[in-house]
């Protein structure tokens, strides 16, 4: 990256946090670009997303290396240790989000060749925007060290699940109605699942932020839809 001459312990921690935010930004861009590629059937954009995944992998490895170096050389305690561990966990989670977005982009390439399934593009877009907004919220909370905001994301995973279940049911009906749409519908089903996973990761990130800021696990149980769609 740029000409960083890291000098002090404080600088190292600061660098770590900003690298995580940078990775977060990349993950956000992957998610929203993959959704745009899907809804606009934009093959070039999908390919950009697939190619950019390498950047996320590299940055994640970089964060991993500097975290280990920091822990080994500086032996951080208490808050600083939690910062370092949070950076490590977040970087892994964000890299996973990036992978899921890459997968969405790959599937959008297949879908761009098929007949458009217009009834779903809007619902998928909605669910995607909801998930992207949650990822943005939780990363904002990380940058601002805002516990309330993180908790707000954590306690509202249910909405993404609602969207997923609703889409699942619809896609199933659609496939039963017209077997020719099964290939495309199956891809859409996986895309919805990927988005649902990214939503879950956003809640995980909120949990990590909670631990980073307070030193405690989130106390109560997360509201969760227990029933699977049928």
């Amino acid at each position, binding site marked *: 990256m740029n000409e960083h001459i890291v000098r002090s312990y404080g600088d*190292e921690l*600061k660098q770590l946090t900003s690298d995580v935010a940078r990775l977060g930004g990349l993950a956000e861009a992957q998610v929203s670009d993959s959704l745009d590629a899907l809804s606009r059937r934009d093959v070039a954009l999908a390919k950009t997303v697939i190619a950019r995944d390498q950047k996320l992998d590299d940055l994640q490895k970089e964060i991993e290396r500097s975290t280990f170096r920091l822990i080994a050389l500086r032996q951080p305690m208490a808050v600083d240790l939690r910062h370092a561990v949070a950076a490590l966990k977040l970087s892994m989670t964000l890299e996973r989000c990036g992978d899921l977005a890459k997968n969405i982009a790959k599937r959008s390439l297949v879908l761009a060749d098929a007949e458009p399934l217009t009834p779903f593009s809007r619902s998928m877009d909605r669910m995607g925007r909801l998930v992207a907004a949650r990822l943005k919220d939780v990363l904002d909370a990380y940058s601002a060290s805002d516990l309330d905001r993180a908790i707000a994301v954590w306690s509202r995973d249910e909405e993404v699940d609602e969207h997923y279940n609703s889409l699942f049911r619809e896609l199933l009906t659609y496939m039963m109605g017209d077997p020719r749409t099964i290939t495309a519908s199956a891809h859409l089903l996986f895309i919805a699942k990927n988005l649902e996973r990214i939503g879950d990761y956003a809640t995980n990130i909120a949990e990590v932020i909670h631990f980073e800021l307070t030193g405690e696990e989130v106390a109560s149980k997360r509201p969760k839809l227990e029933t699977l769609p049928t």
Partner: protein
Amino acid sequence: MSQSSFLNRLTAAFAAPQRPSAEPAAPTASVAPDPLHEAALERLPDPVAVIAAARAGGPEVLFANAAARTLFGAPHRRIGLVNLIRDPGVLEAVDEALFGRIEARSVYEAGGAQDRVWRALARPLGDPATGPRLALLTFSDETDAVRGERRRADFLANASHELRTPLASLIGFIETLRGHAKDDPKARDRFLGVMQAEAGRMSRLIDDLMSLSRIELNEHITPLGQVDLTLAITDVVDALTPLVRQAGVALEPSLPPVGAATIVGDRDQIVQVIRNLVDNAIKYSPRDTAVRIVVSADVSAIEAVTVRDPAASRFSLLDPDRVEGRRYILLQVSDSGPGLAREHLPRLSERFYRVEGQKSGEKLGTGLGLAIVKHIVNRHRGGLGVESVPGSGATFSVWLPRADGGQVGAP
């Protein structure tokens, strides 16, 4: 004075007092900013920020004018740029300006409920040989151009699809009337009645589509003016009296005194929100039941989304961006109708979405009412939610920022 030398002096002056004494002082720290230029920059309508390279943690924001602080949601102090904008395109552009010393551009979508699109431009600033590495980062609003294009496409697709059905039925009846029903006065009367209903439906649909597209175009512009919700609701209730009587339903408003529930808003649009919600409630109410209209004058964003009935499922159709300490006025409209099943809730404000089993002709709706409500509420930086117990009714909640919260628009 050239623009860039002015900016150099300005940034130096802004940066100087915030620099810890142990670090090398900015080279031009003794130059005071020209107050007129400073004020001019501060009040520019477009976001402008000055970015400096830092030792660790990526580039830092030295100065951000009022518009930029609103965009970033950031306080006026030195802070790492990546803490405010994570967008990789903008960060790369800034890096290019700082280290490559070339001008770079990127598109920045800020996200959030209003969803604006900006064109970001980063330009190198100052001379790295003699001073700190600086870059000027400016944003111009491209929302109208980008969204306008997308909306036009959507509008055409929606409108043509929904207008086709009533039009096809009109054409069918006209053919019949010119053909074998020509001399049958009874059939002719019946057909003309149906044709009038279909034409009425098309006309309502066109009205709704037009008003929706108008609202969407203004969606990211904060409204001016103040609206007293109590007065607005009273007006709507009065206007709906004939409809209410016809439906055999009672309206039960429970409102705070006049003056206690004032919001910043566009009166006509707020009236449309109330009207659409109450209209809907009346439509789904069985005879001899009541539609309750309740206004709570002072709630927090958390209280506004709290479920009151433990048996109910709740869903937020729209959530405003979080603003610390903002207080809301909550309007709730409840009916005692059939209610809505959980799986329909997420999609209620989608255009033309109709709950299964609900015949579109019977209830005289266009499928756009809630979409209109949602877009108006979003323009007013408010929220929209629905709560329902299948079998015993639904409650729609709208919460809008209080006028005396004073935080609508610029902070």
